[in-house]
């Protein structure tokens, strides 16, 4: 008995020293460190492996999520494979967010299928908050391995989690085994300096960057964001970081990670994690001599309000170039820009003003928590006074499934994630993307408008 205990203790000591070696390694990127730590193949083995860019590694996954438009296919795949037991139900999360509450009978039936699955396996379920925001508010921890059947899963990189999107059947495989293979990505480093000018926000920064690098500019790559000064760091609230990490998907990034600093710590202190079973918090800082595939310097002073579209996210213009494009709808919300900071700036602009008579304005919070905070702070009252509609938290309008879909030839300016052909409804409709401030200013004028004159 004593011998067994001591060998377990010995193993634990070896594991800890292996993790410490990885954390201290100056030559590794964030992605290389996390994947090396989560490497399932070398666990409990004498020979330890450091994973570097290009390696293919099987990793232990801390949390695997699917939502109402990807979960049903994951469940179908599990059933077809004849797998009726999950590896660890406490690490499986289903979120009903995209078409919540069900917009019609077909959706309701798929929601019911998800609830049956959750009840059978005793895994976790969330209804009525967007998965990425809910995960940020309650689950995401620095250094965790989070996979989600939703491309914007990368949002959790804002708290230094390794978070990336995969497909439904692969999520099914993770639920079954707790593991999946990953290729260690090359990393692009982006240094931020300067300050944001009036009317310029995190969304403008990431749109500007996507415009420069293109929709596949970071395909297969990890992004590591750095702050060159404390001044610019303080301008990046957790909400702003979440926006950037989320929208990094639009240049193809596999993960998009912010460093851990006092803003991260404060956020995690104020928003306690509710599931200690997932992802032990490991503070991972990239090595000072890590090798980067590419490096960018962004001076935030040089960025002006951006508008992207239509049809592709990398078709980016300054707001002046598109000023006077008439709009039928203005949408403020989504996992990209539906957080409290976004609702606050929209309320500041809409306060005491009216939405243009030819325009509908729809405001959708990203989560129940954001919804409650928006009520407490009086923002909802401001929206309703201005003539805007305030909906429950959902992905609805962003994906054209309900609560703000577009008809033939309609034009929408939106703070949501994508402006692809037919994204929000009819194939002939057009979507332009911008910050919540630019969308709110446009709602007032009935055309694409510069937010700076309202601030």
């Amino acid at each position: 008995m004593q011998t067994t205990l001591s060998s377990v203790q010995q193993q634990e000591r070896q594991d800890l020293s292996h993790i410490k070696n990885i954390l201290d390694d100056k030559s590794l990127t964030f992605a290389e460190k996390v994947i090396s730590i989560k490497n399932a193949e070398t666990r409990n083995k004498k020979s330890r492996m450091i994973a570097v860019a290009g390696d293919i590694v099987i990793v232990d996954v801390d949390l695997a999520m699917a939502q109402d438009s990807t979960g049903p296919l994951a469940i179908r795949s599990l059933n077809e494979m004849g797998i009726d037991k999950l590896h660890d139900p406490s690490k499986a999360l289903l979120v009903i967010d995209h078409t919540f509450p069900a917009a019609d009978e077909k959706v309701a039936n798929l929601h019911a299928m998800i609830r049956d699955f959750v009840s059978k396996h005793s895994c976790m379920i969330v209804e009525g908050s967007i998965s990425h925001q809910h995960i940020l508010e309650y689950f995401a921890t620095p250094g965790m391995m989070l996979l989600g059947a939703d491309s914007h899963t990368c949002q959790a990189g804002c708290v230094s989690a390794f978070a990336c999107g995969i497909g439904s059947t692969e999520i099914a495989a993770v639920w079954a085994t707790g593991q999946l293979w990953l290729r260690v990505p090359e990393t692009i480093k982006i240094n931020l300096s300067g300050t944001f000018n009036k009317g310029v926000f995190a969304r403008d920064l990431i749109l500007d960057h996507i415009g420069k690098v293109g929709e596949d500019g970071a395909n297969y790559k990890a992004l590591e964001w750095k702050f060159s000064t404390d001044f610019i760091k303080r301008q990046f609230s957790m909400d702003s970081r979440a926006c950037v990490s989320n929208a990094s998907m639009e240049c193809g990034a596999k993960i998009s990670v912010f460093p851990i600093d006092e803003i991260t710590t404060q956020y995690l202190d104020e928003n306690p994690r509710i599931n200690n079973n997932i992802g032990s918090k490991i503070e991972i800082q990239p090595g000072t001599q890590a090798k980067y595939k590419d490096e960018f310097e962004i001076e935030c002073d040089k960025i002006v309000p951006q508008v992207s579209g239509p049809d592709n996210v990398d078709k980016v213009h300054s707001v002046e170039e598109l000023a006077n494009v008439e709009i039928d709808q203005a949408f403020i919300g989504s996992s990209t820009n539906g957080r409290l900071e976004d609702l606050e700036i929209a309320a500041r602009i809409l306060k005491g003003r009216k939405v243009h008579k030819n325009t509908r304005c729809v405001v959708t919070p990203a989560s129940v928590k954001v919804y409650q905070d928006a009520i407490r702070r009086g923002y909802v009252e401001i929206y309703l006074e201005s003539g805007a509609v305030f909906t429950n938290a959902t992905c609805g309008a962003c994906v054209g499934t309900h609560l703000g879909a577009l008809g033939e030839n309609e034009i929408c300016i939106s703070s949501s994630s994508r402006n692809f052909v037919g994204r929000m409804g009819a194939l002939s409709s057009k979507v332009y993307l911008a910050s919540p401030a630019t969308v709110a200013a446009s709602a007032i004028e009935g055309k694409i408008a510069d937010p700076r004159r309202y601030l």
Partner: protein
Amino acid sequence: MNDQPIIITGISKGRAWVFGDNINTDIIIPFRFKSRTNDPYEMAKYAMYGFDPDFHKKISKGDILVAGRNFGGGSSREQAPVALKYAGISAVMAESFARIFYRNAFTIGLPALEIPEIKGKVNQGDELKIDIINFNAENIRTKEIFHAREVPEFMRQMLLEGGLVEYYKKYKQFPWIQT
């Protein structure tokens, strides 16, 4: 309802449909359709809807998509390669693929061949031959052979079995697990 899985293995021939860059998942299958069914044959009715809502009626079984950069960008929706496969598309060749689409294509058994030099080498309607054993493609009109980017052996094995589900049904094990 036909419930037999479509398995594309070995060598297949088909006519080319040529597309440009950034054919994203919203073009391949819009959210509002894919999120209202769990039936692959129903998904197939909306394949390439964003390009042409009648696309699924215009293609012949075995046809091949040839595209430019970043095919399948955007959403993680596995319904995108599923819709193409069940509509009768036997393979996609592209200069490059978006990361999640590429994984999903192998997972569901739709051959995805990354061929950086394919641009301008295939005309609409050309007859193509795809070989997923040797991972190459031939334009039968020009006799030119294109080698696709190599993939890890377990991905090729998974594809040859018709995807992850079929692989697991046969071996009771996931392909990336080395015994």
